[in-house]
C-alpha cells in the first residue's frame, strides 16, 4: 500500500489510453476486521448455519425413506433377517426387479400409465384453465354458488362414492341412446365403460377427477391477476371472447398450465384408488394396478417348495420394489421440470 502518505493518487503505470493509479485505502486487514469481526455478521452466519442444518435435516427426513427402500429392493431374504445389515445388503440380488420387469411386464405397465396420465393431465389442465377463466373473468348470476359446488366436489372423497360411480359408468348412457343403438355391443364392451380408460377421461373432462377443484382454483387465481386491459385491447382488435382465450390468454398462462399439468400428471401416475376402482381387469395393466404389485400365486407356490426361501418375504419385497419402480420414472421427470413447478405458481399472482 501507499506508505508515503501522499494526498494525490500515485500513478503506477501509464500508457497511451490506460492509466493505473494507487489510491490511499485502508489496509486489507482493517477492511476484513470491519467486515467480519462484528456481532451483526456473527448472528447472520449463525442464522445461515442454523437454517442450512434445519433444511438439511428435513431433506433427510423426506429422502431417507427412498434410500431405505432402494437398499431394501436389492436385499435377498437372508439380508432381511440379518441384524447387522442396515442399508447395504450383504447378498445383493436383483430378483424382485427381474420378477417385476419380466413376469409383471413393467415396461408395458409404464407405457400404459404414461399414456393414461398424459392424456388425463392434458385434459385436466385444459379444463381447469377453461373453467377457471370462466370463474375469474365473467360476472354472472350464480357464479359464487357454482364455485361453492366446485369446492363441494373436493370435500366429498370419491372413495365414499366409488360404488355409485362404478354403477354409473357400467350403465353409462345419454338418455338411452347408446343402449338403443347397441353402441356398446358394437364396440365389444360388455360392461359399459367399466374397465376402459373412459371413466377417468370423462371425470377429467368434467373437472371432477382427483383434486381438480384445486386446479380450477389455481387457474382462477391466476386469471384474476391478468389485467382486464389485455382482453379489452384484443376485443378492440376484433377478437371474440373465445379467440381471445385461445390466442392470447392460453399462451400467457403457460407457466401456470405447466404447474397444473405436472401436478395432474404426477397425481394420476401415483393414483391407486381410481385405477383399481375403474380398471381392475388384468388386461389394463398400469403401474398402480394391484396386479402389478402382486406376486402370481404359482410363483408363490414354487417359492414355498424351495428350501430356505421365504415366500412371504418375497411378496413384500416385490411390493417394495414395485413402489420404487412406480416412483423412479416420476422422479426422473421431476428432476427435469421441478423448476417449472415453482416458476408457474410463483408467477400466478396468487398474492393478489
Amino acid at each position, binding site marked *: 500500500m501507499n506508505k508515503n502518505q501522499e494526498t494525490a493518487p500515485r500513478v503506477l503505470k501509464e500508457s497511451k489510453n490506460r492509466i493505473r493509479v494507487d489510491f490511499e485505502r485502508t489496509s486489507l486487514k482493517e477492511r476484513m476486521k470491519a467486515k467480519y469481526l462484528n456481532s451483526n455478521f456473527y448472528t447472520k452466519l449463525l442464522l445461515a448455519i442454523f437454517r442450512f442444518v434445519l433444511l438439511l435435516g428435513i431433506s433427510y427426513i*423426506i429422502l431417507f425413506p427412498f434410500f431405505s427402500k432402494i437398499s431394501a429392493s436389492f436385499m435377498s431374504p437372508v439380508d432381511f433377517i440379518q441384524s447387522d445389515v442396515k442399508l447395504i445388503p450383504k447378498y445383493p440380488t436383483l430378483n424382485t426387479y427381474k420378477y417385476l420387469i419380466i413376469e409383471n411386464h413393467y415396461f408395458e405397465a409404464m407405457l400404459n400409465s404414461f399414456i393414461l396420465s398424459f392424456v388425463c393431465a392434458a385434459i385436466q389442465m385444459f379444463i381447469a384453465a377453461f373453467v377457471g377463466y370462466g370463474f375469474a373473468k365473467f360476472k354472472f348470476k350464480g357464479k359464487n354458488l357454482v364455485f361453492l359446488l366446485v369446492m363441494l366436489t373436493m370435500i366429498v372423497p370419491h372413495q365414499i362414492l366409488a360404488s355409485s360411480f362404478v354403477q354409473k359408468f357400467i350403465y353409462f348412457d345419454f338418455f338411452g341412446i347408446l343402449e338403443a343403438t347397441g353402441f356398446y355391443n358394437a364396440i365389444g364392451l360388455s360392461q359399459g365403460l367399466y374397465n376402459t380408460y373412459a371413466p377417468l377421461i370423462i371425470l377429467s373432462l368434467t373437472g371432477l377427477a382427483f383434486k381438480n377443484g384445486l386446479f380450477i382454483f389455481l387457474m382462477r387465481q391466476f386469471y384474476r391477476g391478468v389485467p382486464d386491459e389485455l382482453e379489452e385491447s384484443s376485443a378492440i382488435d376484433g377478437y371474440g371472447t373465445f379467440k381471445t382465450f385461445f390466442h392470447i390468454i392460453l399462451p400467457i398462462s403457460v407457466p401456470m398450465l405447466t404447474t397444473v399439468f405436472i401436478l395432474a400428471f404426477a397425481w394420476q401416475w401415483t393414483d391407486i384408488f381410481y385405477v383399481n376402482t375403474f380398471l381392475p381387469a388384468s388386461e389394463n395393466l398400469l403401474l398402480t394396478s394391484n396386479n402389478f404389485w402382486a406376486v402370481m400365486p404359482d410363483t408363490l407356490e414354487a417359492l414355498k417348495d424351495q428350501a430356505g426361501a421365504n415366500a412371504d418375504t418375497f411378496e413384500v419385497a416385490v411390493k417394495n420394489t414395485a413402489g420404487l419402480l412406480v416412483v423412479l420414472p416420476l422422479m426422473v421427470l421431476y428432476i427435469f421440470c421441478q423448476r417449472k413447478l415453482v416458476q408457474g405458481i410463483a408467477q400466478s399472482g396468487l*398474492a393478489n
Partner: protein
Amino acid sequence: MTNDIKMNTTTPASSKKKKRRGASLVEKKDRLGWIFILPFLIGFVFLYAGVVFESLSYSFAQYNTIPAIKGGGYSLTFVGFDNFAEQLMKTVDSDGKTFIEMIFTSFANQIIDVVIILMFSLFIAVLLNTKMAGRTAFRAIFFVPVVVGAGIIAKIDASASEILDAMSSLEGIDMGTSQGGEQASGLVSSMDVEMLLMSLGLGGSFTDIIVQLVERIYEIVNRSGVQMLIFLAGLQGISPSVYESCQMEGATAWETFWKITFPMISPMILVNAFYTIIDSFTAESNEVMQAIIAISPDGVPSGAQSAAAWTYFGIVIVALGLVALVCKNFVFYDRKND
C-alpha cells in the same frame, strides 16, 4: 360476429330484458361465462349430482342385493333416519366411544394438525424464499412429497411395515430395514424431547403435543407440500421494494414478518387452511375415514356407511364455514385488480 350467434342460443332469457333495451355489451359478454364453466356444470348435473344423490339415498334406506337368479340388481327400502340413529350411536372402540364421539375427538386432533401444518409450511416457505446456497436443491427436495403424492408413499410404507411384521414373526431379530418415517424421526429421540420439556417445567398437555409433533414430523412434512407451494407463491408475489423500505426504516426481521409478510400472505393462509382441512379431514389415513371405509370395505353400498359419511361431511362443511367466517375478518386483501 360469431359470438352473437352463440349468445342467442345460450340466453333465452334475453327476451325478458326487452323492456329495457336489450342486454348491454358487457352483460352479453358476462353471460358467456356460462359456456366456460359448462364442462364442470354438465359433469356436475349429469354425473356428480346423480352419484351424490344415490349415495344420500342409501343413507335413508336399507340396501338389499337381489340374487342373480332373480335378475340381479338391488332394492332399497326406505327406513328414514334409522341408519343415522344406529350408526352414530354405535360404539367403535374398546373405550365404548360412540361414532359421533369419535368424530368430535378426532376433530380436535385434526384441528391441531391443521394449525401445525400451516405453521410448518409457512415457516419452510419463508426459509425457502430467502437467498442462500443450495436453494434450488432444497426447493426440489421439499416438493418431492407433492409430486409423489401421499397415497403411494403410504402404500410403500405399508409394505415396509409388512416386511417388519413378516420379520417379527421370526422372533427376536433386529430389523435390517425399517420404516423410513420411524428411523428418520428417530434422529431426535422423543424421550429426549420429553425430558427436556419436563426439565423446563412445562406442563403435560403441551409436552404431549410437542412430543407427538416430533414423532410425526415425517407425516407432517409429507402433508404440507402443496401448502408450501402456495405459500411460496404468495411470498414471491410480495414486492421486494416493500422489504427494502422496511429495512431503511430500521425494522427488524421479526417486525418485518409480522407487519409485512403476515398480512400480505393472509389470503394464502385462508386458502391453505381450507385446503389442509379438506385434505386432512378426508384423507384415508384419518381415523374417522378409516372407520367409515371399514363399515363396508369391499365397496358394496351400505346405508350405514352412507349415513356415517354424510354426517361427517356435514360437520366438515360446517367447520369450513366457521373457518371462513373467522378468517374473513383477519384476511388482508391488496385490491389491485378488483
